[in-house]
């Protein structure tokens, strides 16, 4: 017990333990949530034929799938399987969920990385631009633009832009069969362009707000005034002293947006027919495939917790002040 107490004292270990506890809660929630879904595994895999089964056959099947066990036993069994890499099997495609996820995840990650890159490329220069003259037209103008970008639903932008491009220019790369980056980079990047732009624009908004706020805050710091007083040239001051320190919260917001992206891909992958992990959840829900939905949701949550943990720990490395606390 005292060892455990000692562990919770250390800030990094404490954060890791907290993440582990969160993951445990996530697994319980995912498990119970999808046990409640209307229709069980038997009706899902036998369809309407399930109605023709005799009570004995039904009982046998329930025993086969372990549905007659107490919920706690089912949970422990399920978790044991998950930890050893058994995420279940899709009843329609007879593919293991692990294989499906391994195939889908790179597409989603590619989309996420491209979107974050676009978000940073739009948001950081925008923040610099707005913060260069606080209160001026360029500042309020970019603030209005950022508010608009935040208010536009991604599914609406995606629908409008893709139908417009397809109808006016006949350009619809996502109508063709999807190609992964390894299969056909040229086609893949064309297919990723619009989705990444739509998600990137919506991420640009929080990045812009953070960049602007942190630049404005750091500009007023004592060390910046000192540097200016001792004659550091303006450009060097901007990059070396202001932007470099302002980047810390910007990197954090980039990491935090990852979660938003994993949610955003649900909609975007669906619209642009990208076989990623978000689409896997939706397909699973539509086909009432327990195993697929349950495991994929769990994978997404684990990914999210891991990225947040990594962002937190990275923050400690980048900003010595956090370590001192």
């Amino acid at each position, binding site marked *: 017990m005292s060892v455990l107490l000692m562990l919770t004292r250390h800030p990094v270990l404490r954060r890791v333990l907290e993440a582990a506890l969160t993951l445990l*809660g996530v697994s319980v929630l995912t498990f119970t949530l999808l046990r409640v879904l209307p229709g069980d595994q038997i009706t899902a895999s036998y369809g309407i034929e399930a109605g023709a089964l005799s009570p004995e056959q039904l009982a046998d099947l329930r025993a086969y799938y372990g549905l007659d066990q107490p919920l706690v036993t089912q949970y422990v069994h399920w978790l044991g399987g998950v930890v050893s890499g058994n995420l279940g099997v899709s009843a329609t495609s007879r593919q293991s969920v692990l294989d499906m996820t391994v195939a889908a995840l790179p597409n989603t990650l590619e989309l996420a990385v491209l979107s974050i890159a676009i978000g940073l490329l739009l948001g950081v220069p925008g923040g610099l631009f707005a913060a260069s003259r606080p209160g001026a037209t360029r500042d309020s103008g970019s603030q209005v633009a950022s508010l608009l970008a935040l208010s536009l639903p991604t599914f609406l932008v995606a629908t409008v832009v893709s139908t417009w491009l397809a109808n006016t220019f006949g350009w619809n790369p996502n109508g063709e069969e999807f190609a992964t980056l390894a299969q056909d980079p040229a086609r893949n990047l064309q297919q990723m362009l619009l989705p990444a732009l739509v998600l990137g624009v919506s991420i640009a908004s929080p990045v812009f707000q953070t960049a602007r706020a942190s630049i404005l805050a750091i500009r007023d710091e004592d060390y910046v005034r000192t540097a200016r007083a001792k004659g550091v040239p303006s450009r060097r001051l901007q990059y070396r002293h202001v932007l470099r320190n302002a980047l810390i919260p910007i990197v954090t917001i980039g990491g935090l947006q990852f979660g938003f992206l994993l949610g*955003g891909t649900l909609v975007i992958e669906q619209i642009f027919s990208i076989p990623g992990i978000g689409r896997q959840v939706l397909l699973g829900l539509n086909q009432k495939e327990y195993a697929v939905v349950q495991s994929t*949701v769990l994978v997404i949550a684990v990914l999210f917790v891991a990225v947040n943990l990594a962002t937190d720990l990275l923050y400690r490395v980048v900003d010595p002040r956090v370590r001192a606390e």
Partner: protein
Amino acid sequence: MSATSTVPARVVRTSRRSQLLVALRAPSAVVGVVLTGLVVLLALAGLVGLTPYDPARQDVAAALQGPSATHWFGTDQFGRDLFSRVCAGLANSLRIAVVSVGVAGVIGVLLGVFAGYFQGLLDRVVGVVTNVLFAFPSLLLALALAATLERSWVTVSLAIATVYMPIFARVARGPVLSLRSVDYVTASTAIGRSRLSTLFAHVVPNMRGILVVQTTLSLSWAILTEASLSFLGFGTPPPAASLGGMVYDSQTLSTVAPWMLAFPGAALVVFVVGLNLVGDSLRAAVDPRSRGAR
């Protein structure tokens, strides 16, 4: 630094409430109030059934007509009047947003306030629960919950409420941590007022500003979430009108009937932009850090 503002930046020290009202006089807030008011008016018309047509009434002879004097926003593929359906869709958005944010706000704020004020085990439990709920991307959690429950506007509201509850809890907990040791709060318990009564008499009223801002912004997020769920087919079930569902339906008919996409989409954007403009101005009034720059 900025000499552009016409109103004096610092008004005589006034109460929190009038501080928020003053914030609503900023030009962007006025635009926000007007936009929101306009859309809410249409939503209320949809809610009480004061629309030119029954939003569910089909008239195949009048299918896919463009905007005209008889059908202001045109008609859809079943000949249903789009203006009436946009009103009904807005009513659906408004109803779900108000119920979900109301439930999330009350439960979340109570949990956050109690956790921050009484600390101890309660604080830890609330902390773990919020962490677990935060571990899911919000749209994914709302989707999983909405798919689990029997589909109706109430369950969609509850699903969205579950997603926003931890946000309210976290937003409410923070200020309580600093307020609980402020002199007038300790003085209140010292002269014999109970801790619970002190909490609601002296701590919670001082958080009004933050909570008003959070509520306004949450309303716009809730509207966006509901629309996304409906678009994906997991929102309010048809034939009830929902803005997200209408955008989805318009996709295949975009060349024949672009108005089917334009009007529901515009209604949605106006609603969210309006609320965000109001929320942003309120935040500028409440959060002194973002005020100086304006």
